[in-house]
């Protein structure tokens, strides 16, 4: 029987033949991930399980990225606990300080994840690696503790929803607009318990980083994973990031999908997700004049080098509007260095932006850009729940880096076409 991409990736790891949706299978995993917030609970559960050692010292990865650089005493203590565990357990991959970055930008860059892998992470945006053709999904700390101890976990095989993007991308349309348009159409639980699988000419032409942006937000539709076929572009991207000979993987023709959606990107325009759900999607051109206090460009959704270049494309030779704080956080030290090398920081600082360290920081209202009462932000992040970035009385609009940068310049939510 023809298999979906989901079934095809899961099969080699499963303890039985993957027949179809609803089946519960036990799977070996390629990699287990946790961060400074979720690892502390995972360590607690790991010890509670009576586990003495991790299943593989090379395959358990801890990334300190949410509240780092350590924002206060409590978060410093959490990181300290993770560090001590990593040393004690002899983990090869522990990242903190100058070698750390936002986990879902860092792991692909280091070649730790790639096509055909099965990855579980104690972070909901673990689904990002679907952009590389990996089956990757977020779980809670205790599930991750089980994975750390056993090197396996259980899954209910999800049904797949196929989403086709046809056509040619207009000048200012970005991957972020495509995924927001989809969530706007199907809703924040439109892919609940399901896997999203993407295809079509616009996806084949989309760069791998854009695919990761889209896979990243599968969870915002309730999805278990967001998957892209691994093709020549994927193989080339992986090869540039220390992973040679990455396999090509695609769904079988004629596989069965729970639902199918088709979009023509040629007719689409830049959008934002309005407060307080990622599914409240509206074209930028349809918005009234909405003044902005803060702009965030970064995160596991849009903090990669292509996003930095996009921001620079709009900000070059322009100034950030008065009373707007525009904060740019390249997601990893590698992206930071590359941005510096390409002169992007000159463009950013000349425009009046603040360039900060790699961190999740403001995305989850942690630090490095918090909203006060009644303040409004445009952010390239992934969630705009009420209070997500600070005050319960603040608002977050989600957008692509080009819309965020244009909004920083005009001081109202704007498309770059309006500049």
């Amino acid at each position, binding site marked *: 029987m023809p298999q979906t991409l989901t079934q095809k990736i899961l099969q080699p790891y499963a303890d039985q033949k993957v027949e179809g949706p609803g089946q519960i299978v036990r799977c070996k995993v390629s990699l287990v991930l946790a961060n400074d917030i979720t690892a502390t609970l995972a360590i607690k559960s790991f010890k509670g399980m009576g586990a003495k050692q991790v299943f593989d010292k090379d395959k358990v990865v801890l990334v300190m990225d949410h509240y780092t650089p350590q924002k206060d005493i409590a978060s410093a203590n959490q990181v300290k606990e993770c560090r001590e565990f990593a040393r004690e357990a002899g983990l090869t991959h522990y990242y903190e300080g100058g070698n750390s970055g936002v986990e879902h930008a860092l792991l692909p860059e280091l070649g730790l994840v790639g096509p055909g892998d099965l990855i579980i992470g104690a972070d909901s945006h673990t689904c990002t690696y679907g952009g590389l053709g990996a089956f990757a999904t977020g779980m809670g700390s205790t599930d991750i503790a089980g994975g750390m101890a056993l090197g396996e976990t259980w899954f209910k095989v999800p049904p797949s929803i196929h989403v086709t993007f046809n056509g040619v991308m207009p000048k200012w349309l970005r991957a972020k607009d495509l995924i927001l348009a989809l969530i706007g159409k199907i809703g924040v639980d439109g892919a609940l318990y399901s896997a999203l699988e993407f295809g079509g000419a616009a996806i084949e032409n989309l760069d791998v980083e854009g695919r990761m942006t889209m896979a990243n937000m599968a969870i915002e539709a309730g999805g278990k994973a967001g998957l892209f076929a691994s093709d020549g572009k994927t193989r080339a991207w992986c090869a540039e990031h220390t992973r040679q000979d990455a396999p090509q993987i695609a769904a079988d023709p004629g596989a069965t999908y729970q639902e199918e959606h088709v979009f023509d990107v040629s007719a689409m325009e830049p959008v934002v997700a309005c407060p307080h759900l990622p599914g409240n999607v509206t074209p930028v051109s349809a918005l009234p004049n909405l003044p902005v206090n803060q702009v965030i460009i970064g995160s596991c959704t849009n903090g990669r080098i292509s996003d930095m270049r996009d921001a620079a494309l709009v900000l070059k030779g322009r100034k950030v509007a008065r009373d707007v704080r525009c904060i740019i956080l390249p997601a990893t030290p590698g992206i930071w260095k590359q941005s510096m090398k390409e002169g992007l920081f000159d463009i950013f600082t000349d425009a009046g932006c603040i360039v900060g360290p790699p961190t999740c920081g403001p995305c989850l209202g942690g630090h490095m850009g918090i909203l006060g009462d009644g303040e409004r932000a445009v952010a390239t992040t992934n969630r705009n729940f009420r*209070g997500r970035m600070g005050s319960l009385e603040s608002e977050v609009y989600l957008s692509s880096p080009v819309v965020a940068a244009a909004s920083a310049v005009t001081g109202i939510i704007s498309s770059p076409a309006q500049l």
Partner: protein
Amino acid sequence: MKFKGTAHKVGEHIDTDAIIPARFLVTTDVKILGQNCMEGLEPGWIKRIKPGDIIVAERNFGCGSSREHAPLAILGAGIGLVIAHSFARIFYRNAFNMGLMLLEVGDGIDKLNDGDCLEADAASGVITNLATGAAIQCPPLPSFMQELLQKGGLVPYVKERLSR
């Protein structure tokens, strides 16, 4: 396992930032997390809660992050059962792993109102609204999850596997 308590009804898409805002994620202490349960939905929400009370929610309860602090905050608030139209996937797994009981009832949720006294039997999946007399039958849990629950959650399950 049987539950009896007052229903506290919340809306749809209650996200994990509403259940426990990120600023409280600098601790794993269940008691402290419990004191701040639903602080992102309504400051001071916890003051209305008595131990044994039940959360009744619309669609997609627990959407958003994978933070296990969310089911822990609910447990820390003295709540052992959440009944919802539907649950977000990661939250669903986390709750069972932490020993928080969930019942997914679909449109049956409309038979449960804020303030009603409810009785629920996890084994049979029957919820009775003592205020109105209405009864709801939930679909049974997959057998694998029942086995996990019988073992007392994922921690004892893995402990047993490791001791073999």
